[in-house]
């Protein structure tokens, strides 16, 4: 009889790390299954300069286009960090030809928390009430008051630097001192504040990067390449923060190379009995037993595991009595914005590479404000900077004087890049593609997802608003744009196992617990009932910690 763990966590990334930490700290013997390899700080390459990589950062484009033609679409999948992204041939998925979707994945201990963008923004009731207010999809079963203490809990441990603004649509949190805006950014901030006082606010990004040491992790040293790792553990990842704490309890068993095939349903107890795993190296099937199962495998991988776990009782996928499993897939739409040149001080230039930019919170369709001809809203990331030696290609001249002139920084530029809310839509869904299997013989996903008119209207408005703000800041050569990014590119995929109040229309309840199966929790992005426009990771983390607390209580009450 194999050992029964108190809990099994599938995934070791952003949410899996939190589940591991919270469950082991609550006393549970916890097995963490990770599909990919072990990653240690020896894999970190953030201090390797360009001259020590073969193509100096131009990337090994032949190998990349052969092995990672999809992953390379992510900016972080470069000559240094491509090892943190999957091989596309080993990890196939399909789409209809007219519905491209970018499925960007990191399969290793740490998951995508190694290469994430580190931006941290709380949601507010503007977001949690949005579906109810608009009569779209289903109402969130929670409100800000339910999650606020859990935001506090995770932010204190993550270490979030940021500026308090007192904005109702973007609640303040437990912040370390903010990083600084450079003089191009303060100039634009002040011009916008003058034109749209109280309405449009430029602040420095709230990010999961330390500006003060915390729990043995050092403050940022501004090398600038977080997605390559961080030997001082200054930014938050599961490797840098949560997994070491779980390990220190002595109650975590972390098993890399454990590709979860499916969950095992115990029909007598009407519970999940365990997990069916394909060993990533030997390709042998193994089973593990646990009293409690946390799916933290990422939105699409968690959906895939549940769809691949169909039984006689759940013929369309485990815990799918609602029929909503796999449906309502969303990703932030991004890429409406504008660039321009600004007249910031020519005698000033930042020193250091700040791994963070500006943030301009949502200002459309706020409660009590004017209504736009679209639903919901968007926010901007971006920032100011000066041209470097790269401008030399188009700078007439050559020789000693020209070389010397390139020592001075070039023009100041400013860019706004919009991230917009994506509405939930039942017709955006994933299913199992029985004809396509991954390198471990597990059926792959077929993804059907397109943006709708509302998403494109948001980006069009984001482009126009960005241009008008640059104009207000006196910018020249203003270039508005709307990038036609396919869904998936923002890597904020959400939905497929949404939370809701009614078991007939949602997969999970207010505690991320499956309506149909009490010992099954899904706490990654799959649980989301809408997307807001804020980067989602901190909300996943808060929901995970909250669900762990509930699950441990339910076990103590012998409900599970």
């Amino acid at each position, binding site marked *: 009889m194999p050992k029964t763990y108190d809990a099994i966590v599938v995934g070791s990334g952003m949410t899996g790390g939190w589940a591991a930490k919270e469950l082991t700290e609550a006393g549970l013997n916890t097995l963490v299954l990770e599909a990919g390899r072990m990653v240690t700080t020896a894999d970190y390459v953030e201090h390797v300069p360009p001259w020590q*990589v073969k193509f*100096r950062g131009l990337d090994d484009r032949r190998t990349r286009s052969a092995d990672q033609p999809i992953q390379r679409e992510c900016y972080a999948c470069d000559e240094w960090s491509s090892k943190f992204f999957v091989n596309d041939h080993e990890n196939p998925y399909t789409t209809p030809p007219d519905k491209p979707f970018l499925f960007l994945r990191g399969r290793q201990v740490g998951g995508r928390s190694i290469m994430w963008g580190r931006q941290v923004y709380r949601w507010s009731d503007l977001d949690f009430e949005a579906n109810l207010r608009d009569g779209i999809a289903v109402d969130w079963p929670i409100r800000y008051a339910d999650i606020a203490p859990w935001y506090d809990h995770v932010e204190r441990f993550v270490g979030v630097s940021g500026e308090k603004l007192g904005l109702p649509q973007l609640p303040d949190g437990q912040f370390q001192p903010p990083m*600084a805006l450079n*003089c191009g950014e303060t100039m634009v901030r002040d011009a916008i504040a003058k034109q749209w006082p109280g309405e449009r606010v430029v602040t420095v990004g709230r990010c999961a990067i330390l500006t003060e040491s915390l729990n043995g992790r050092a403050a940022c040293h501004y090398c600038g390449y977080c997605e390559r790792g961080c030997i001082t553990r200054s930014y938050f990842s599961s490797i840098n923060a949560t997994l070491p704490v779980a*390990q220190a309890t002595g109650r975590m068993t972390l098993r890399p190379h454990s590709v979860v095939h499916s969950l095992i349903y115990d029909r007598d107890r009407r519970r999940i009995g365990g997990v069916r795993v394909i060993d990533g190296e030997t390709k042998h099937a193994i089973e593990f037993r646990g009293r409690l199962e946390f799916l933290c495998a990422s939105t699409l991988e968690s959906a895939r595991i549940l769809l691949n776990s169909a039984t006689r009782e759940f013929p369309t996928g485990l815990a799918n009595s609602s029929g909503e499993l796999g449906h309502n897939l969303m990703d932030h739409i991004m890429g409406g914005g504008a660039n321009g040149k600004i007249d910031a001080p020519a005698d000033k*230039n*930042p*020193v250091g590479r700040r791994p963070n930019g500006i943030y301009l919170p949502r200002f459309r369709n706020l409660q009590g404000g004017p209504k736009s001809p679209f639903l919901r809203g968007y926010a901007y990331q971006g920032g100011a900077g000066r041209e470097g030696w790269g401008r030399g*290609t188009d700078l*007439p001249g050559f020789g000693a004087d020209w070389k010397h002139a390139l020592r001075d920084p070039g023009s100041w530029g400013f860019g706004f890049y919009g991230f917009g809310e994506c509405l939930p839509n039942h017709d955006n869904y994933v299913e199992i593609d029985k004809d396509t299997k991954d390198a471990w013989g597990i059926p792959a996903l077929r993804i059907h997802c397109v943006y709708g008119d509302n998403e494109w209207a948001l980006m069009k408005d984001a482009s126009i608003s960005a241009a008008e703000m640059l104009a207000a800041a006196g910018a020249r050569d203003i270039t508005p744009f709307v990038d036609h990014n396919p869904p998936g590119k923002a890597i904020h995929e959400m939905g497929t196992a949404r939370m809701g109040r009614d078991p007939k229309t949602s997969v999970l309840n207010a505690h991320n617990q499956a309506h149909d199966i009490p010992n099954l929790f899904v706490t990654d992005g799959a649980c989301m009932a809408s997307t807001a426009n804020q980067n989602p990771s901190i909300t996943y983390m808060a929901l995970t910690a909250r669900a762990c607390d509930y699950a441990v209580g339910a076990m103590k009450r012998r409900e599970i």
Partner: protein
Amino acid sequence: MDRRSVLRLLGVATVGATATDLEAIGRALHRRLGHGTPLRILDPHQNATVVALSDVILPATDTPGAKAALVNQFIDLLLAEWFSPEERDRVLAGLANVDARAKTAFGKDFLDGTPTEQIALLTALDDETARWNASPQATRGPEPFYHQLKWLTLFGYYTSEVGAEQEEHYAIIPGRYVPCAPADTVAAPE
């Protein structure tokens, strides 16, 4: 599970480490082989031409130039392993065309020209490229070879150890963020 890996994972208390320590760790962990790679695509004449062209674009001043930074070796690597065969052939044809232009201008290969003759030819190429740059993108025709060479030279130089450290004063670990520093401190030695 790999116990040693986990111990390594947990044993990274680097608080208090200085920028110099970190840099040393980074270098020790990731040191790569140095120069000395034999050329794979450029023949000796082509190579000498690339060396000469790149060093006219970025000559030695109070810091080393493109020749000392071995920009030619990096370009050879790109030709061998990075460019597609068609792109590689266009670069080599562009290089041959420099000699054709040199023969028309002063009756010799580029390499055999005097410094004055070489600079005059590069000035002509630079002016043509500036005109190309200023014309509308839709109608201006393909990228001139000289434009591409200029980019390859700049990139190869500033991403080399010589160019990054001595010319640009690139700091792998700045250790701080100063949002509005005087611009002249950027290129100043630490």
